[in-house]
């Protein structure tokens, strides 16, 4: 234990956990490109926001990089063919979801030529305007590749609207097992730096800080060398500690600023992008290439060839596993993403999406499934929680269905990082509790909205009926009054004529 770690422990500022990173040897293996599979399945919803809308027909021939589904609405991203071929189906397939729910996808039968459309490279990308850069990023379908998959152009535009002074580039890659960001930083360093410079132009930020965990010395060295000529970009080695890559934690580590609970990073003058996103932005802006492939890690004790692979989007996980020599023994768990926050998948017939940072084939020992014991109130979860929550108390409330009490304890501040469940000696699936409670709350909210809307409609109907009845009555009364007035007037006129005629008669 080094001194710094010891002091942090003494001072009690030792948030988070220190899992074995399991990054090597996968991180040191040369990147291999996966051959184009016979068929790719491109999910229409592989970003935060509205799903994209197909703009191709079945039977249509498409080239690599051709737009096949357009963005819908303000927060959305377009989708491009990840290789050349013929659109063979537009329909539901198994989506990346723990219970294997299906989702809409465009299936392309590939022709093996992998032929690009005519891209639109820019001679001097750094002379482009901020708006133009954001537009090219939007058109290329670039989303946050750290896993959040938020449309990147929206964030770039947001940066220009609010006053951003610091751009944070997240190269921490704090999830164990994953090393695609590290590989990217080591292999495509100059492209990443170009991407960061483009983002600086686009957001209007004055400086960029690249946070890289100190368990990746090669990546730190490469990035430092590549940014030596750019004073506005600083590469910072941050302590390897999970979840360092979480926005709020990384912002504190790199700028000392704390994002208020109900605010966004932009509100404190910061915007965070992943290194993978920086690379995708460079490809989109400089070369005009849409996001159609990504680097991803295959790892876990049951993976036959752990390493990083360049994979076209829509490739089935089964293709990747088959290409890398199958599995070593029977995997106990199949996970998309990292072990701390990734998603457990029911089978391998699921396509790679933009946010797929890795696929883990965990053996029984790594998966560490076991029956939970009762809570012994040891407080490990309290110490581990990077948000300063009381996971044990929140779980106790949720178990008793006292969801509002759990919210009062800060349930909505939970980032689901998994530190609490990872340290829990009783192996209580705490995150499961929190996810369940949040789902329950949002369905309650929805039900409440629905009830409110129904109540409002019913009330409006009642009011309308009453108004109509009142109007009817008023109209009837008015008519009656009019009739009475008319009758009175007629009677008067009659009387007058009578009088007149009488007078006339008299006079006659």
């Amino acid at each position: 234990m080094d001194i710094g770690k010891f002091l942090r422990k003494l001072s009690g500022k030792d948030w988070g956990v220190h899992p074995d990173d399991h990054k090597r040897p996968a991180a040191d293996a040369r990147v291999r490109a996966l051959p184009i599979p016979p068929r790719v399945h491109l999910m229409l919803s592989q970003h935060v926001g509205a799903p994209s809308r197909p703009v191709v027909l079945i039977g249509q021939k498409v080239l690599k990089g051709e737009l096949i589904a357009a963005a819908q609405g303000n927060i959305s991203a377009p989708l491009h063919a990840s290789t050349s071929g013929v659109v063979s189906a537009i329909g539901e397939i198994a989506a990346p979801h723990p219970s294997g729910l299906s989702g809409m996808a465009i299936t392309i039968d590939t022709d093996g030529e992998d032929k690009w459309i005519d891209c639109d490279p820019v001679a001097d990308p750094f002379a482009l305007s901020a708006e133009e850069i954001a537009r090219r990023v939007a058109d290329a379908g670039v989303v946050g590749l750290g896993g959040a998959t938020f449309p990147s152009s929206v964030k770039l535009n947001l940066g220009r609207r609010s006053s951003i002074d610091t751009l944070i580039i997240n190269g921490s890659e704090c999830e164990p097992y994953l090393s695609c960001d590290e590989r990217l930083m080591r292999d495509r360093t100059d492209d990443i730096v170009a991407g960061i410079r483009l983002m600086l132009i686009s957001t209007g930020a004055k400086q960029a800080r690249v946070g890289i965990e100190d368990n990746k010395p090669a990546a730190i060295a490469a990035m430092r060398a590549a940014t030596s000529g750019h004073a506005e970009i600083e590469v910072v080695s941050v302590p390897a500690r999970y979840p360092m890559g979480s926005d709020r934690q990384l912002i504190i580590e790199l700028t000392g600023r704390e994002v208020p609970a109900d605010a966004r990073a932009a509100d404190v003058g910061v915007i965070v992008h992943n290194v993978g996103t920086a690379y995708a932005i460079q490809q989109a802006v400089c070369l005009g290439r849409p996001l159609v492939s990504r680097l991803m890690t295959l790892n876990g004790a049951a993976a036959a060839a752990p390493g990083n692979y360049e994979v076209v989007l829509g490739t089935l996980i089964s293709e990747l596993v088959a290409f890398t020599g199958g599995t070593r023994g029977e995997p106990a768990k199949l996970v998309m993403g990292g072990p701390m926050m990734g998603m457990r998948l029911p089978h391998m017939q699921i396509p790679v999406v933009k946010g797929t940072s890795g696929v883990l084939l965990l053996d029984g020992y790594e998966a560490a499934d076991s029956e939970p014991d009762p809570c012994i109130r040891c407080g490990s979860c309290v110490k581990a929680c990077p948000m300063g929550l009381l996971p044990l108390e929140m779980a106790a409330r949720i178990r008793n269905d006292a969801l509002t009490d759990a919210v009062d304890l800060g349930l909505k501040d939970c980032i689901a990082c998994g530190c609490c469940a990872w340290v829990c000696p009783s192996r209580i699936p705490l995150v499961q509790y929190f996810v369940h409670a949040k789902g329950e709350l949002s369905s309650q909210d929805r039900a409440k909205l629905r009830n409110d809307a129904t109540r409002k409609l019913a009330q409006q109907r009642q009011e309308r009926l009453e108004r109509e009845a009142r109007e009817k009555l008023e109209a009837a009364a008015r008519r009656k009054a009019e009739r009475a007035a008319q009758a009175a007037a007629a009677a008067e006129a009659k009387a007058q004529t009578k009088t007149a005629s009488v007078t006339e008669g008299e006079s006659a």
Partner: protein
Amino acid sequence: MTQVDLQMPSGGQAVASPHAHGGNSVRRTMLQVQVALVPATLFGFWLYGWPAFFLWAGTILSCIAWEALSLRLAGSARVRPTLLDGSAVLTGWLLAMTLPPWAPWWVALVGGFIAIVIGKQVFGGIGQNVFNPAMVARVALLVSFPVSLTQWVTPMPLSAVAGPDFVDGLRIFLSDLPMPDAISSASLLGHVKTELSRGVDMAAALGGAHAPASSWLGVRPGSLGESSAGLILVGGLFMIGTGLIGWHLPLAMLAGLAIPAAIASSVDPTRYLGAAQHLLSGAAMLGAFFIVTDYVTSPNTRSGQLLFAFCVGLLTWVIRTYGGYPEGMAFAVLLMNAMTPVIDRFFKPRILGRDRRGKALDLPDSERG
């Protein structure tokens, strides 16, 4: 190599992340605490002979038996895993540490019943109890059987010729014979209390021929596992080093005891024991490292823990100094256990992005131009 297209059913396990675990378990935690108790326990065996060993084994067995019986009666589906988690063993072990080393078999039996059944299982088992089970048993025994619970044996190391052998030890444990005066003795705290109540000056009381000494080593009359402050400290430091417990609780409790003791004895040394004697006597060290650090019955947060443990220390000093009993650690712990839910209500960690009251932080508009 297996088939590539394998289907992996999710099984009955949680689908939510994380999909890996740090490897800690309740059983491992309990075992580590027991490892930390070993040095002081072995010293107790050596110091007080075979009867101490039998008392230790008897108390643990009694706790396991009561736990098994309770679980069976409650119709628990997890009898085996619960017995294997080591919590009943630890409760019994801690209780034995606080008992007079030559206490007879029925003390072990009744103590185990009080600790496990009344102290723990009626609250709902592990993790649910409000009070520290070992301290509940210790106090209930002391109040119910004051004579048996205050018979301190003069140290008679295993190596000594006069000490009881294995069979004699078993006979002492099983027969409940009154202890001959020649080998009974007073603990330092009891001795001082008696002498002061007789009107004897503190200096005279400590200087007298029969006055027990206090020392780090702990060759003195006392409870089975409380005599050697040094060895308890070794175990405690082991637990702090392995991250099992924080330094907050032990330090705060020792401070809560030592600070008033130091002040009082500097004001009037003829009536008050000094800080060193307080710290090295009775259950102070065991309490600081093994009792107030109990996970279940101590507060969640570090600030809450500091307050809790400091108050335990302070109350211990108050009871020792002004109360009817020479030792007050167990009472102090139980009193503060009752306060734990209140402390937990008021001491919560600050949520990131919020102030202490839970209100979202203000935006730093003024800071940035």
